[in-house]
């Protein structure tokens, strides 16, 4: 029997249709009448994202399925979708002036950002492992191309090739994991799979454990967790800075959304073992990320290692399973503003045609560029977890969730790691304000769009840090409504 349109419930898929549709429209218009500036493509992308955002905000929490059960329109999915859309909109703003400055202003850039976002949305809302996989691939392939977007740049090409090869490998792991879980439960729908696993009990089923382990490898690659992190520093450094900013946030939000849903809906009966596995990964990720970050002398690479460590902190709450879901969501919201903001400053300050920003270039910028420097200091303090910023509240809730779930030692390791991280974050602030420049950097004017993006990020970091209550309540209510 063919499904009727009401079964498909296309209305709930409007966010994805709007985002992917805007991407296709950009490519079509660019192919038909491409002349002059590509600014219109950025505005069209923002429009598509705004439509999706409006739809997500208005739809609220109502656990129902769309498209015959492939996607879930519940609080969890919608909340992660919201974070993802905000991050995508900010990275469009960040890229507008940068692309023109680097003479790589092309409409495809915005189309690919939109497609990547649509893939991430699918991962956040997926109620089917096949949907998770297709979303993951859409996100990944867009990011491979975006990493190589500055085609004349050898570092950019090298980054993309590394990312592609290792990413394809990880996708194969993920796919094999799906196949094993399908073998263990007889379905790819997450809700049905959860029921089947609960009924079967958690006696050692090698298919189930094999599947879980392989899927964690696949997701762990996307999140750059430690044994699977080796691609991240090179790719973050080699890719265009605006792409790095987007990638560091979007793929984390999407992958954590899928991971949280898997843990809550499917693997809840298997919690003891998955938690132990994730706790091990969290400890490794935090520690290795932080220690390697100490040895860096270039801001972009430092931020790459820092975002590895940040993924470890978030994983601490994911270990707690259902208890930690709200903390993961809240932290990712704050992280989106903080990390995008930090990369936006790197992008504003780096030399033309060069992705790198060595520490020595930062010297003296605290007084030559007081506003931007203040913003970067704010973002770095938030990444450290200083009070009055969103990073503090976020980490409090992350580690609190772990303690609540009985993982006190893990929370202690996480706090110790935060202390270590303060050293390299604050060192940047010290260099900006307390060292004289030997060779002053020739700075470009930051454009209006970049200014707006920085202002939004800074406002987000401060507001969420000072009055976190509203956002926390929102996060808690959202993750309470899960299709299961």
């Amino acid at each position: 029997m063919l499904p009727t349109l009401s079964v498909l419930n296309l209305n709930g898929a409007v966010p994805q249709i709007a985002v992917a549709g805007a991407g296709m429209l950009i490519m079509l218009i660019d192919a038909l009448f491409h002349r002059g500036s590509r600014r219109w493509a950025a505005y069209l992308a923002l429009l598509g994202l705004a439509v999706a955002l409006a739809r997500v905000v208005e739809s609220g929490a109502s656990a129902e399925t769309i498209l015959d059960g492939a996607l879930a329109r519940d609080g969890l999915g919608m909340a992660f979708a919201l974070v993802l859309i905000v991050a995508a909109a900010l990275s469009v703003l960040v890229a507008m002036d940068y692309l023109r400055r680097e003479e790589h202003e092309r409409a495809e850039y915005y189309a690919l950002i939109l497609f990547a976002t649509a893939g991430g949305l699918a991962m956040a809302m997926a109620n089917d492992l096949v949907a998770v996989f297709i979303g993951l691939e859409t996100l990944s392939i867009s990011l491979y191309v975006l990493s190589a977007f500055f085609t004349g740049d050898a570092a950019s090409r090298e980054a993309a090739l590394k990312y592609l090869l290792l990413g394809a490998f990880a996708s194969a792991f993920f796919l094999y994991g799906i196949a094993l879980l399908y073998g263990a439960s007889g379905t790819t729908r997450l809700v049905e799979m959860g029921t089947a696993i609960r009924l079967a009990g958690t006696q050692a089923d090698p298919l189930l454990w094999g599947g879980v382990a392989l899927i964690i490898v696949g997701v762990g690659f996307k999140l750059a967790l430690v044994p699977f992190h080796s691609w991240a520093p090179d790719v973050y450094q080699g890719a265009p800075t605006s792409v790095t900013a987007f990638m560091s946030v979007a793929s984390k939000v999407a992958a954590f959304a899928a991971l949280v849903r898997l843990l809550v809906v499917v693997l809840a009966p298997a919690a003891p073992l998955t938690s132990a596995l994730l706790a091990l990964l969290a400890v490794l990720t935090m520690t290795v990320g932080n220690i390697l970050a100490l040895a860096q002398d270039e801001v972009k690479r430092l931020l790459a290692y820092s975002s590895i460590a940040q993924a470890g902190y978030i994983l601490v709450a994911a270990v707690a399973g259902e208890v930690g879901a709200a903390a993961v969501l809240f932290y990712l919201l704050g992280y989106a503003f903080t990390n995008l903001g930090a990369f936006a400053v790197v992008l504003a300050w780096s030399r033309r045609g060069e992705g790198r920003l060595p520490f020595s270039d930062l010297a003296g910028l605290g007084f030559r560029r007081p506003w931007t420097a203040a913003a970067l200091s704010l973002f770095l303090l938030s990444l450290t977890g200083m009070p009055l910023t969103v990073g503090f509240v976020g980490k409090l809730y992350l580690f609190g969730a772990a303690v609540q779930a009985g993982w006190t030692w893990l929370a202690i390791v996480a706090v110790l790691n935060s202390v270590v991280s303060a050293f390299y974050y604050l060192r940047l602030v010290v260099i900006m304000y307390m060292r004289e420049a030997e060779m002053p950097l020739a700075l470009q004017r930051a454009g209006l769009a970049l200014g707006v993006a920085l202002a939004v990020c800074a406002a987000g970091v401060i507001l969420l840090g000072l009055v976190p209550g509203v956002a926390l309540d929102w996060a808690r209510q959202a993750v309470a409504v899960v299709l299961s």
Partner: protein
Amino acid sequence: MFELILFVVFAVVALAAAIGVVAQRNVLYSALLLVLNFICLAALYVLMNAQFVAVAQIIVYAGAVMVLFLFTVMLLPGKRIEVAGRRLPGQTPLAILLALALGAVLLLLLGGSLVALGRPAHPAITVGNVQALAEVLFTRYIWAFEATGVLLLVAVAGVVHLLRSGPRPGAPR
């Protein structure tokens, strides 16, 4: 009766081709015999009302995989490529052992499916599995089907971008 004749014909040809693949010394002939074997297997799938598997067999194995194989063979230097007479130490006993192991696994699987002989056939077998597949694809997996379209579009757009604005040959960076 007609089905039985067809089955015997294709089965015999498939077996003969398979033996030929191993016995032939000329690599090119081996590869071509493998194609013959794949096509006979596809015909057997059709006899079992598994048209989709048959088509996939032809497209994926006889088409994509074998073309790759033949290209590689033809790119090798020399007019006639023959398998050297030398063998690896212990190759024959190892080959026999592995063949027996494979045979045992296949017999086990066959034994498992004999149990199901009396039961009513799966609907996919009675209606033909192209139809059954289409039904699942356009109902339960309609989203996956449509989203794959977007995924392929992304891949095409990405390749076009990378090639159109790629580095000129000989450019320094």
